[in-house]
Every structure is written in C-alpha cells, then in structure tokens.
C-alpha cells in the first residue's frame, strides 16, 4: 500500500470513523474512541488523574482535514520500511491529537502550522497540502526540513516542521512498533550479570577482576544474606 492509500484506510477505517463524523459535525456527534491506546486506562492512575485522562479523551481538538494533514506529515517524516510500519501505523496522529489537548501550548503552533502549509501549497499549486501530489508536498517540505538552510521567508514553516518531526519521532519510538524498531529489549524481569563479552571486546574494555569479585554472584541471589560481625557477607 502506498502512502496515500494507507492514509486513506487509516482515516476512514481503523483510526476513527468517529473522527470523520466528528470532523463534519462536532457539535452533534460525540467522539467515538476507537484506538486501542485510548481504551487502556490502567496504568496506575489516581482517581483525579483518571478523570483528567477521560475528560481529554472525550474532547476533539483537530478536525478531519487537520488530522489528515497531520497524518500525511507523520508519514513523510517516518514512512513504512520493510521491517517496521510507518508513523501512522504506530498511531502517531492519535498521539498528537491527545498531546494537543494534554499540553495546550502545542495547539496554536500545530493548527497555525497546518494553515501556513496550506497557504504555501495554495499559492504554489492552488491545492491544500494534503490534496497535493507527493512531489508537490515534498517541494515545500524540502525547503523547511533542514534547519540552517531554510530561506528566511519560510522560517515559520521550519519551526512547524521541526515540531512535527519531534512529535512524530517521540510518538513513534514510544509505540510498540517503535520500541521494537529501536531494539530496546528491557522492561521485563531478568538477571543483570554484566556487559556481554563481545561488547566489552568491541570497546576494548574489560572489567577489573578485583571489582567484579565483590559483585553479586547471581547463583546465590536467593540465599538469605548473613554477615559476620565485621560485615563480611557469609552467604
């Protein structure tokens, strides 16, 4: 599926029938939560925190067109690869929608940034950004994606795109797909017994034998500690 197709399926399919409807008639249509993250409230919240999350989830900030544009940008920033999905596959647009409500200081730069972008493409191609062809979209993005090289009159766009890049990367790498992509393999019960030998070799480092001799013997970790009177461990 190409970028355009996957976005289409995202917006009419899995992400949110609710968002589509809601974008058309925000006043009458209560938002429908369909993304899986929104259903997981069990992460050790106090009643006040739970209430705050629920309140934010019941609100909708971006309209359908804005969300479409955000999704296009997310997937320009992180398209799908052979092994790992795109930013939208990782649920980044929904994450940005939540963050805009959770950190309202993001609202204006994002909404205004989308309008700025539409203004650019309307001037150049007489189309909103999300309706432009890939080439047309990239023609604008290429001018604002490289801080330090942006023409002076497009600095507002650079600022917006940098924010989008930050939110996209952070949303992606804190998702299940992104963590696999990164190779983070912790957050699970295990036994730390030092740096793997091949890594030590690669870095030309070695453990000081005297230091290591005093470290925990993981074979004996379940033996209850006992000491002599001088504080020497006996077990």
């Amino acid at each position, binding site marked *: 599926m190409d970028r355009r197709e996957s976005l289409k399926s995202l917006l009419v399919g899995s992400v949110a029938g609710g968002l589509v409807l809601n974008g058309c008639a925000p006043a009458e249509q209560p938002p429908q939560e369909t993304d899986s993250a929104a259903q997981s409230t069990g992460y050790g919240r106090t009643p006040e925190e739970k209430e*705050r999350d629920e309140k934010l*989830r019941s609100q909708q900030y971006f309209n359908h067109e804005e969300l479409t544009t955000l999704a296009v940008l997310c997937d320009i920033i992180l398209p799908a690869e052979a092994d790992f999905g795109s930013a939208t596959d990782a649920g980044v647009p929904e994450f940005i929608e939540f963050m805009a409500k959770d950190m309202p200081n993001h609202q204006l730069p994002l909404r205004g940034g989308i309008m700025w972008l539409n203004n650019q493409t309307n001037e150049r191609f007489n189309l909103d950004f999300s309706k432009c062809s890939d080439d047309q979209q990239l023609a604008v993005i290429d001018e604002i*994606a490289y801080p330090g090289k942006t023409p002076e009159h497009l600095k507002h766009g650079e600022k917006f795109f940098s924010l989008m890049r930050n939110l996209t990367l952070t949303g992606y790498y804190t998702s299940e797909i*992104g963590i696999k992509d990164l190779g983070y393999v912790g957050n699970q019960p295990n036994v730390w017994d030092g740096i793997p030998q091949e890594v030590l070799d690669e870095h030309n480092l070695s453990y000081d034998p005297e230091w290591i001799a005093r470290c925990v013997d993981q074979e004996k970790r379940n033996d209850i500690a006992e000491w002599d009177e001088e504080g020497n461990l006996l077990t």
Partner: protein
Amino acid sequence: MQIIESPETFDVIVVGSGAGGGMTSKILAESGLNVAVVEAGPMFDPKNDEHRTQLRWPWESPRRGASNVRAFGDFDSAYGGWEIDGEPYTRKDNTEFDWFRSRMLGGRTNHWGRISLRFGPKDFKRKDIDGLGDNWPIGYEDVAPYYDKVDKLIGVFGTKENFDNEPNGYFLPPPKPRLHELYFIQGAKKAKIPAIPSRLSILTKRINNERGVCFYCRQCSRACMAYADFSAGTCLILPTQRSGHSLKVFTNAMVREVLTNDQGRATGVSYINREDRKEYSIKGKIVVLAASACSSARILLNSKSSLFSNGLGNGSGMIGRYVHDSTGASRSAIVPAMFNRKTYNEDGVGGMHVYTPWWLDNKKLDFPRGYHLEVWGGMGMPSYGFGFNASDLNEKFGGTVGGYGSKLREDVKKYYGSVMGISGRGESVPQYDNYCEIDPEVVDEYGIPVLRFHYKWTDYERQQAKHMHETFEQIFEGMGAEPLGDKPGKDKDYGLLAPGRIIHEVGTTRMGDDASKSVVNKFQQLHEVNNVFVTDGGPFVSQADKNPTWTILALAWRTSEYIIDELKKQNI
C-alpha cells in the same frame, strides 16, 4: 464546624508514613504499643495492580509518560510534586525554594533514588572542622549501631572501602557496572578521582522470605511490586500490619495541628479528612511528627495555644530556621565510542551501579563541604521527549541536521545509549536566615495556613557548584566524552539548582543540647513538650553530602527505642 472525635486513645500517634514515620510506627507497634499512623494521602501498594506503574510500557500512557501531570513523569510513584493543586506555599522577598511533597502511604520513599549513604564521623562535627554552622549533639558512634540495624533489616548493596568518612556497613553485593559506567570509571581514574560501587537500598540478594530479589528493570522510581527496594509502606508499615501488631493507618488525613491540654502536654492531633472535608481529632499519649521536615515545622507552628503563642515547642523561635537542601548541578555528555551500539538489556537496578564519594580536602579549596558524584546514562526505555532534536548532534558528528524519512531512524539509533551524564550532590551550610514560617495571609484548600519560604544560597554553595562543573569536564575528558550544552557561568550561579530541587530539605526542627538554639534534644524530643517527638529530616543539624534517608531511618529507630525506654521508666 463540629470536630469529630475518635473514641479510641492511641499510645502513639505518628504523623506521616515515609521513612521516619514508617520506622517509628514499626518499632513502636512491635514493642506492643497501640499505634496510629496519620497519612495525608491515600493507601498505596505497588503489588496492587490499580496502583502499579512498574513494567508498564510508554504507550500505556496516552502522553507516553510525559511529566506534565506528575513531576517525574506518569510512571513515577509520587502522588504530588513541587506544585499540588489546592496546597500552595509562598516565597518571601523574591527568594527561591521549591517544595516537593508526596501524598501517599510511604510518602517520597516510593519514588526516591534509593541512594543509602551513612553519614561519617566528620559529618556530625562540621563546625569543628571549618568553624561554620553547628555540630550535632551526637556523633557517628551514637548512630552507628542503628545504621547497622537498618542495613540488616532493609538491605543495601555496596562495598567495604574503609574510607574515613564513608563508613562500612552490612552490605549486599553490588551489581556489575554497565557500559557507560565502565567508561566513567576509566575517565575518573585518568582524572585521579575515585569511583566505587554505589550504595543503594535494593535487594541484589534475598534478605528474608517476605521480600523478593531485584529483577533488574531499572524502575525503582515506580515502586517495586516484588518489594525488592526500600519504601516505607512495603518494607515497614505493611509488614508490621501483616504480622498482627496494633498499627492503624488513617489515610487522606491532613493534620492541622497537635492538640495540647492546660498542662502543655500533647493530647492528640486534629486533621481534615480530604474525602469528606470534615475535621476530626484523634487522642494519643505521645505524638511523633514525621510529616517531612517542612510539614512537621508547619504543624508545630500552626499548633498555637495560650501556653504556646509562637507555635508548639517554639520558645526558641528556631522552628523553620536553618532549612537547607543539598546542592545540585549536572552536565551531560556524549561518548562517540558508544555510537551505533549493539542493543541488549542493560536496565540493571533503578539507578547507578557506580558512584564517587567526596574525595578532596576542603582546606585546599575555596569552599567548605563536599559533594558526591552520581552517574547516569545507558539504553533506557523511551518516553515522551525521546527523539526530540534527534539529528541536531549531526552538526558536530557529521550528517544532515533535520530532514525526514528513514535517515531519521538511523540518526536515532546512532545516538541511542551514547548520552550519559554526571550529577553532583553536595552539602550546603545551614543558615539562620534561610527559613520557613507561616504565611500570615494564605491558607490551603483545607483552611490550614501555609508555609512561606525565605531561602538564599551563599557563595559557599555557588563555589561548590563551580567546582562540580570543573570535575565533570575532567572526567568527560578522561573518558573521551564530548560535553553537551554550555558550562554555566557566574551569571547562572554555575548551574546550581534552586533550593528544594534535590528534595533533601532538612533542618527545620534541629537538635541540640541548648534549648534556646534548637527545637529537639538529641533523642528528637521537643525541649518544651516531652511527649512530642520529630523523626523526619527536621532534626538534622547539617545535611552532609549524603542523601538523608538512611540517617532518618537510623535516628527514627534510635528515638523509638528511647520512647520505649522512657515509657518503661514512666518519664513520659
């Protein structure tokens, strides 16, 4: 408003359930006394799945763990922070102080760094060494037996180094260093700075059959469902209750004041129940305040009566004076040798496996008092903010800044796990003019007058922070790391953090032999009211460059034994 009186009279009422309150209530309840613990926040047990944040993934939080709701992020186990809705505090004369509070069973022990350092012999007698501040009325030899008992009861890993001011203890074996910590050891060695295994209250080895052993998730700040690290709820209060002793916990109970009778003796406490917003009172024969240094000072200052017009036990005017926090400064750096790391699970324990105790002689330096170094870094679990400005480092290390597409994936992986940092945590010199007092105009949502802080660092602390930054750069150089950001100059107080940011505030009810210059005696008993004690950080005369928890625990145990003894002698 009608005050609702509890019918039961307790032998002891302990206000607060953190390190001091937890230890006091355990020792007193185990001695057969009927103990009430009054806690301002709710019940908390990390074994309870409703409370658990440990082993959760970032995507389980819709804000991916960002720190806009909880000060240290969504998964940190502190219900509170430097700012709490409805519970303000104020600052006087444009001075700075940030006050961290945690409202829950166990208080701040649920999320703390578990750095468990004994004070050394010099730390109790600093005035003898540099002429500044005051000596404690007790010495290391008075506290050492209690440090020993705390080590064995709670468990702390570390190594016997036989240093003169970093006492040995009953240590569990430490974990092996991580990769960035090996680089740190190498850098410190080149800079002729010691580096030794850290000392944290985390169970690398079993100490009893009730608590589990560390399973290396690096998440002690989330509180441990296996009870493999120290927090006052999991290791002191809950086990004491389970073993059938008389220990009753009142939760969501915000203490307003200590109640006294016409003879000037404490008779109990009054509190506001946060759930129904009604005021209650509990009767007790002894009151122990362990609400945190500043909260206990606030309660005493708000406990005014005809006999104690200045606040309970405050004839000296010393309550709130000498509040002091540790100093803190940090710098991060990047280790090019660690670019494009092979990934593996290096979570380890919740905190550093290696640290540097104070190693220099202040006589040869332009500031008094020392600091220790904490090292951090590694391939941690991403949360909100991960990946921000990911390619900015390319400006220095080659490659395109900014851009889009899969090159960003390469940028992120190139730098992942190569950033580390060092923090200095040092001893400040307590000042009479640094204080908290009752704000004459402001109350909190429970109608209780709030604290107003007045706090200024001196050049002692600024010079120390300057020295910390010089040390950081020496070590970075030795380990082949490139410092990030700028070294803060004089205009920024050399990067010295605002007082209160290190969350080691102590000294508000300091101990002493002279009742005109101190609040409690050497057993942490009010000079003026012999059935009121303070077992949090308030009685500290000086803070050392050590984290205060281990000393709070040892002193609380010592005070508890004193209370038991005095009761036997019918002195209280």
